[in-house]
């Protein structure tokens, strides 16, 4: 069955110059595209550090991976830093296996992610 086209706003907040974007429970096409749009919007508005918080994310499918790779590209083109926080073990292994971790930093939680930003 087709997913409803109703747009649900992606949760995001700013901490200083850092944008924190919250991924949903299942990162598929619909939720992935919302995150991608928000990341691009943040990058276009000049933000150079993005944290994607996966605290609610249980599963990332192939479309989700593809969209995240697109976000990585966009961040690299804008010379922005991208950090994934609160990634569960299964998803962290997936990101590791697919090589995403070569391009993003993983942080245990938001606090660690923010501290990584301040260290840089």
């Amino acid at each position, binding site marked *: 069955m087709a997913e409803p086209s109703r747009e649900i706003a992606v949760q995001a907040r700013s901490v200083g110059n850092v944008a924190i974007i919250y991924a949903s429970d299942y990162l598929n096409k619909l939720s992935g595209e919302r995150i991608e749009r928000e990341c691009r919007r943040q990058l276009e508005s000049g933000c150079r550090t993005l944290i994607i918080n996966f605290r609610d994310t249980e599963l990332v499918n*192939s*479309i989700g*991976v593809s969209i995240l790779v697109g976000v990585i*590209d966009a961040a690299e083109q804008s010379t922005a830093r991208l950090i994934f926080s609160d990634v569960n073990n299964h998803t962290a292994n997936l990101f590791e296996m*697919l090589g995403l971790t*070569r391009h993003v930093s993983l942080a245990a939680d938001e606090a660690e992610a923010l501290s990584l930003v301040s260290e840089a």
Partner: protein
Amino acid sequence: MDTNTQRLLHTFSALADLGQEISDTNDFEEMLRNSFHLLLGSLAIRRGAVTEYDREAGTLRLIASRGFGESTNDALELPADHARELASFGSTMTLDGATRRAQRFLEDHKALASIEIDLLLPLVVRERLIGIVLLGEKASAEKYTDEDLEVLSALARHIGVGIHSHRLLEEVEHKAIENQRLYDGLRKIYKETVQAFAAAIDIKDRYTQGHSVRVGKYSEIIAREMGWSDEEVEGITIAGYLHDIGKLIVDLSVINSPERFSAKDSKEMSRHPSAGYEILARINHPYAEIPLMARYHHERIDGNGYPDGLKGDQIPPGAKIVTLADSFDAMTTDRPYRKKLPLEDVLEDFRANTGTQFDPAVVCAFCRAFLNEIEGRKEKRLLNLLKKNYDEVESVTPLLNQLISDFDGASLTATAH
């Protein structure tokens, strides 16, 4: 869970998702974009494109891409022999084989070479090239393994079949539309021919010009009021146009006689329904009942009509409609032996002859259609046909209501079958 198992599960899940995407053909472009994402996401590939091969134009058209910028936006030329060569690669290939042959292909296609692809996957269905998937490096920066190629080839095969099926469906739909257009054209020609025939019939009788076309239109209005389908209505309209075709064999001097028919002339004239049937039965009409409607349009419910003296339900419903339409037009137009009747007299004639000459259900339907037009509920078609001969038609409203009241529900013998 070890890495290999997890990798296997991830790619297996991509394959399952892809199968679902491809079976959903509601939005082809969306299906392609999603399939492309699935393919890239299965191995976290950073750049890629899906192109579709246009055999007639000899070009590859980009239908989805990521990370290739503007460089792949133009259609790429791909001559037929190159397409055949690519098709011979098949969708399953080893990394070395693929890249070696792909490199040779790229040497001929500099536009593709400039975008630094790592892998080229021909989409082949039934030995024909459907398109090509171009892939860049993986996020891991690792080389593609044989296992990767197996996975990608399987995914690409699905995408190829998806594109192919969609195009086949489009082709079938296109052909169906084309056939419908041809069929509509033939029907139009048929109707125009029939109208020309009707005009030819009426020309023979200088007192009844336009009679056949009007009978066709009255029949159409009555049938529609009786709830007949569009196809049945079209059939009875044609029957109305052709109901008097048998007059073509009746002696001209009889038809154009300025006096009421003598017994001999009447006998000659009464041949026309059977003669019409004989003419029309030789033609394979789209509506099978047309010859019968012509044959029986002078039959009467009480069995005193001709040529066969049929009674009640023995008379086909369409013939009963044409009978009323024919009589109505005869009474509302001037004849050589009398002037047109006042509308009140026509309706009184209907009242007097319903149940003997006319079917009550047909009379009711006619009166309802008439009333609907007078009271503005329906388009004025019947009134437009009458207005040439009558200035004031609204005055018959009480009579129409009375007829409906008298005969509504009395008989349903003329309902469509």
